[in-house]
Structures are given as structure tokens and as C-alpha cells.
């Protein structure tokens, strides 16, 4: 049996090489399928790596509390906010909480300096922001508690804002306008470059109380609270304590749902996992369909090939080949065809993945684990064998005399 298999492999190889163009077209479906899959897997892997790197970078170690608004209360206009007292509660009354930093969006309008304008995200923050987000100034100073307490009109800007407003290389001391209000630039943040083509330096930070004073409604300000945990292994315990304290502070009855939400890094990771597993599902669909199509292609051409080689099969049977010998020969040929298609597809997919990754700025080089490639190749061979069963058994069941007489 081993000898028959080795010989079949040799014969299959010779056959494939003798009909290069046909073999290529036969296996094209498999080739395109695997190329697409490998390219997508490569990009997904790169994407995943890049995302988790971003999370680690964007203060992945901190937790965030924000008001929870369901669809109904959004529609009814009964918008929920965190309370000012929540901030002090977290700062002074809950054990295990480290730094606490409120953040609010401050939609003051366009930034301008002389004739130049820019449209940064303006955030109202406090000095703790620096500790939580781990972002630091490149020039000048960060906001200090006194800025907040006395509602100073000072701003720390990202590099993009400095460029857009054509401020001098060291703009500390310059005055810019946010909307109609004048602010003194006290610092410039370290540049963070681009992620997926989005500039990460297009923002301006002003004191939280200044932002609150300038954006109207004092009682209800939509802000969120970021906080760190003193002991990392206490995340769950601290979350529970914060939840209890906030529920009491919001006067929630025991049967009422939380009107706030605490997001931790693992939640973000979970959301991301959900996205990834969705992607995997879609990918599975692509694999299935493309390999089905590829398999049918192989089956069709193999059926034609069996008909063409009827006489050859008759000769082999006359020389003593059993049904099983013929079956094995054609299964090996189908498997080999589709394996070759798969291998070429993997190579092309790999190149494609790297090429696309190279075109996207700040995208890490795509990486497909070796086991995945080998698995894909093996899977292709299996698909070939499975779809080769019908043509191969057709060949195996030929009557030797009729096969010999076939013209």
C-alpha cells in the first residue's frame, strides 16, 4: 500500500506538471479562498495587536464611571448625570480608590489665533488627569489644582493645535481663543502621532471648573469620572464598593437598577473580544464558502480528467490495480492539487496581508502564526480529498474491458 501511495504521489505530481494551466485553474478556487482567509487573518491579528497596544497606552489601567442612559430616558429627555458629590465621594470616602479625575467635554467652539483656526476636542479636566492617562507636557506645565480652584483661563494644547494655529515652536505664554473666550497657553503635550490615520494630538485641556463655568447649566454637567485603583488585584472589590457608595448617594432603592456604569479595562477587552469573535465567525463563513467553491472546482475537473483518462485506468486495472489502488491514486491527486493551491494561496495571502498593513500608517506588521498556515494547508488537502471522493470512486469502479475499449 505504501508503495502504491508513493507511486500515486509521483504520478499525481507528473500529471499536475504535465497540465500546468489546467491544474492551476482547477485549484484556483482553493487558491483564492486561502489567500483571502490568510490575508484577513493577518490583518485581524495586526488589528488586535494594535488595539490592545492602544488600550495599554490610553490608560488601560484606569476605571471609568459614567451616567447610564437607556434609550427610553434619552428619548423622554430625562437625561441622567453624575452628581458633583460623586466626585468627593470617590476621592475621600471609598477605600482602595487611587487618583480620581473628572472629565467633561467642553464644546466651546472653534479655536483661533489671529487668522488661523483649529477644531480640537476641548476637555475640562483636573490635575489628576495626568496621573491617570499618563500623558505629560513637552513644554511648559500641566494644569495645577489652583487653575481649577480659581477657574483660570489657561489651556494645555496638543501639538496638532499648535500646528493648525501656526503658533511659535514654543507657544507657552501665547493667547488663543476657544469660541469667544481667551485662554493663555501654559503647556504643550507630548506628541502621540497617528492611530489608523487619526491624529491623536488634536485636543486642548482646560480646568474642569473653568469648563463648567463656561458651558452654562451649572447644576447638571455631563461629566465622567476616571479613577485608578491603589491595589491592582482589588479591582472587583473596589468596583463593588464604588457601586454601593454611588447607589446610596443617588438614593436608589434596592429594586432599582444602577443609573451609572463602571467600565473597567477587562470590559473593554470583552467588547473587543466580541468584535473579534464576530470577525472570526464571518471569516469562518468566507472559508466555508470559498472552500466549497474550490472543492467543487476540483471535483468538476477531476470528473473530466477521469473520463479523459478512462483508457489509462483500464490499462492499470489490466495490469493488476485494485479498485482501492485506483481510488487512492485519484484521491492523492485531488488532495495534492488542492494542497498546492492552498500553499500558493497562503503565500499570496501572506504577501497581501503585509502589503495592506504596510499601506496603513501605524499598523503593526501582520503576523499569521505558523500553526494557522500549516492548519490551513492541511485543511485544503482534506477538502481536495473529500471532493475527490466522487471522481475517484468513479475511476475505481470503471469496468476494465470497457475502459480499455474507450476512445
Amino acid at each position, binding site marked *: 500500500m*505504501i*508503495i502504491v501511495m508513493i507511486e500515486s504521489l509521483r504520478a499525481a505530481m507528473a500529471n499536475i506538471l504535465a497540465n500546468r494551466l489546467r491544474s492551476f485553474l482547477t485549484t484556483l478556487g482553493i487558491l483564492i479562498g486561502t489567500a483571502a482567509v490568510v490575508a484577513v487573518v493577518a490583518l485581524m491579528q495586526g488589528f488586535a495587536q494594535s488595539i490592545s497596544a492602544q488600550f495599554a497606552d490610553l490608560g488601560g489601567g484606569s476605571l471609568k464611571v459614567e451616567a447610564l442612559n437607556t434609550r427610553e430616558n434619552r428619548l423622554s429627555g430625562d437625561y441622567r448625570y453624575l452628581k458633583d458629590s460623586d466626585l468627593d465621594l470617590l476621592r475621600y470616602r471609598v477605600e482602595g480608590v487611587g487618583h480620581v479625575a473628572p472629565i467633561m467635554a467642553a464644546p466651546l467652539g472653534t479655536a483661533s489665533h489671529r487668522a488661523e483656526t483649529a477644531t480640537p476636542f476641548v476637555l475640562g479636566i483636573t490635575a489628576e488627569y495626568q496621573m491617570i492617562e499618563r500623558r505629560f507636557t513637552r513644554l511648559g506645565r500641566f494644569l495645577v489644582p489652583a487653575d481649577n480652584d480659581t477657574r483660570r483661563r489657561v489651556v494645555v494644547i496638543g501639538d496638532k493645535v499648535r500646528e493648525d494655529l501656526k503658533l511659535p515652536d514654543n507657544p507657552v505664554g501665547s493667547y488663543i481663543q476657544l469660541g469667544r473666550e481667551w485662554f493663555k497657553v501654559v503647556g504643550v503635550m507630548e506628541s502621540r502621532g497617528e492611530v489608523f490615520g487619526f491624529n491623536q494630538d488634536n485636543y486642548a485641556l482646560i480646568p474642569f471648573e473653568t469648563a463648567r463655568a463656561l458651558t452654562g447649566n451649572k447644576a447638571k454637567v455631563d461629566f465622567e469620572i476616571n479613577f485608578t485603583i491603589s491595589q491592582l488585584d482589588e479591582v472587583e472589590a473596589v468596583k463593588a464598593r464604588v457601586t454601593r457608595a454611588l447607589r446610596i448617594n443617588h438614593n436608589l432603592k434596592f429594586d432599582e437598577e444602577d443609573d451609572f456604569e463602571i467600565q473597567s479595562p477587562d470590559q473593554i477587552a470583552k467588547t473587543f473580544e466580541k468584535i473579534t469573535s464576530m470577525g472570526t465567525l464571518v471569516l469562518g463563513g468566507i472559508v466555508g464558502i470559498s472552500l466549497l467553491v474550490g472543492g467543487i472546482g476540483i471535483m468538476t475537473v477531476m470528473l473530466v480528467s477521469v473520463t479523459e483518462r478512462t483508457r489509462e485506468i*483500464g*490499462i492499470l486495472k489490466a*495490469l*493488476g490495480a485494485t*479498485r482501492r489502488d485506483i481510488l487512492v491514486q485519484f484521491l492523492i491527486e485531488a488532495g495534492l492539487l488542492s494542497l498546492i493551491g492552498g500553499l500558493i494561496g497562503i503565500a499570496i495571502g501572506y504577501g497581501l496581508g503585509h502589503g495592506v498593513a504596510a499601506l496603513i500608517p501605524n499598523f503593526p506588521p501582520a503576523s499569521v502564526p505558523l500553526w494557522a498556515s500549516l492548519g490551513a494547508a492541511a485543511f485544503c488537502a482534506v477538502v481536495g480529498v473529500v471532493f475527490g471522493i466522487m471522481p475517484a470512486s468513479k475511476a475505481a469502479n470503471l469496468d476494465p474491458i470497457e475502459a480499455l475499449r474507450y476512445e
Partner: protein
Amino acid sequence: MSRALIELSGIVKRYRMGDTEFEALRGVDLQIQRNEYVALVGPSGSGKSTLMNLLGCLDTPTTGRYTLNNRDIGTLRDDELAAIRNQEIGFVFQSFHLLPRMTVLGNVAQPLVYRGIPLKERERQAAESLRRVGLGDKLQHRPNQLSGGQRQRVAVARALVGNPSLLLADEPTGNLDSRTSEEIMALFDALHQDGQTVVLVTHEPDIAAHCQRTVRVNDGRIVFDSAAPATVSEVAA
């Protein structure tokens, strides 16, 4: 071992064609001893090839009993028949039936693949068989680089490579000119001299003249056998 190499008794072969049946062999009894040299003759369509295919285990009779080398062929499964074809029988066809993509050496070695013999040994035996038919210098040629006579020699070498107990040839010279035919027949003569049992089909009297025994088939029956009592031959005449 006392029995004949081939024993046929009451062999009937019917072909189905739609809802009609055609009886190609209508009760054939025949015995062939080891190292006989037999010519099967008869008009076209008389059933010679049908008989040869049965002898070569490419086909099985509808009814009747075929014993080859003391084995009852009628009881064998498909893969056992394949093994018999591989080990007991060498078949030579009118139109050579070589594998066009393989070398001469590969063609001759092919039957040994199904015996599980490794490549080196296969090639050694195939080369030896090719030397026996005078083609020791053409091992790496392709069939289409050879003349008709040479191709038929390759086919004979392939039939001989496994030392079969029975060499069958269905009109082996049918596609060859008379000079080349004589060369092929000289080869069969020599093989017979060496002890090989040979059964061949032919139209031509001068080919049949090479053989020691002539069996005439007509309309699915044996009508003359030179080895049988004279009464049969008188009926045939």
C-alpha cells in the same frame, strides 16, 4: 499440479444490450496445459476476444467454471481478480496500451507497483525484462519515440515482468506490418522455448502456423481443436 493450467467447462458469456441479450460464448470447454503454444482463430465477432478477456480475468463468465492454476476463478472477489491479473497473467493487446506519459522503463515496471516492490528493485526487474525483448537500450524513451514493433516489444516486456504463468496476446500483430510481425512472433517462439505458456488470437494463418495448437472459434463455440480427436475437426471442415 497434475491438472491443466487452464480448465474451462460450460462457459457462457451473455452481454446485455438494453432489453435484448447477446450470447457471445455459448458453452465453451477447453483445457490448456503448461507450456502449450495455442492460436485462437476464427472470424471477426466470433467471440475470441471475449474468451481471451475471460482467460485474462478481466471479465467473468455468466455461467460455467474457469480454473486457472488450480484456483476457481468464479469464486474470487474483485480485488482477488486484480491480484490474479497482476501475478498470474501477462496480457498483450493489439493496440499496445502503453501509458504515454511514462518512460519505457516506467511502463514495464508498473505492474510491480501493485506487488509493493520498491522502486530500485522494480527498475532492475523491468530493465531485465526489456533486455529480454531486445530493448535494453531504450529504457528512458517515451512510447511515442518508438516504432510500432518496438512498442509491442515493450508491451511484451511489461507482460513478462512479473513472471506470469500465462501469457495472453489478443491479435498482437494486428497493427504491425508483416516483417515486424515476424519479429514479434520470433519473440513469442523464444518465450515458448523457455517454457512460457502462450495463448494468442490471430486472423492470419502464417501467424497461427507458429503455434503448436490451433483452436477455431465460430459463433461463440469451439468448432475445431487441433489437439482434439479427429471427429471434431471433421465436423468443423
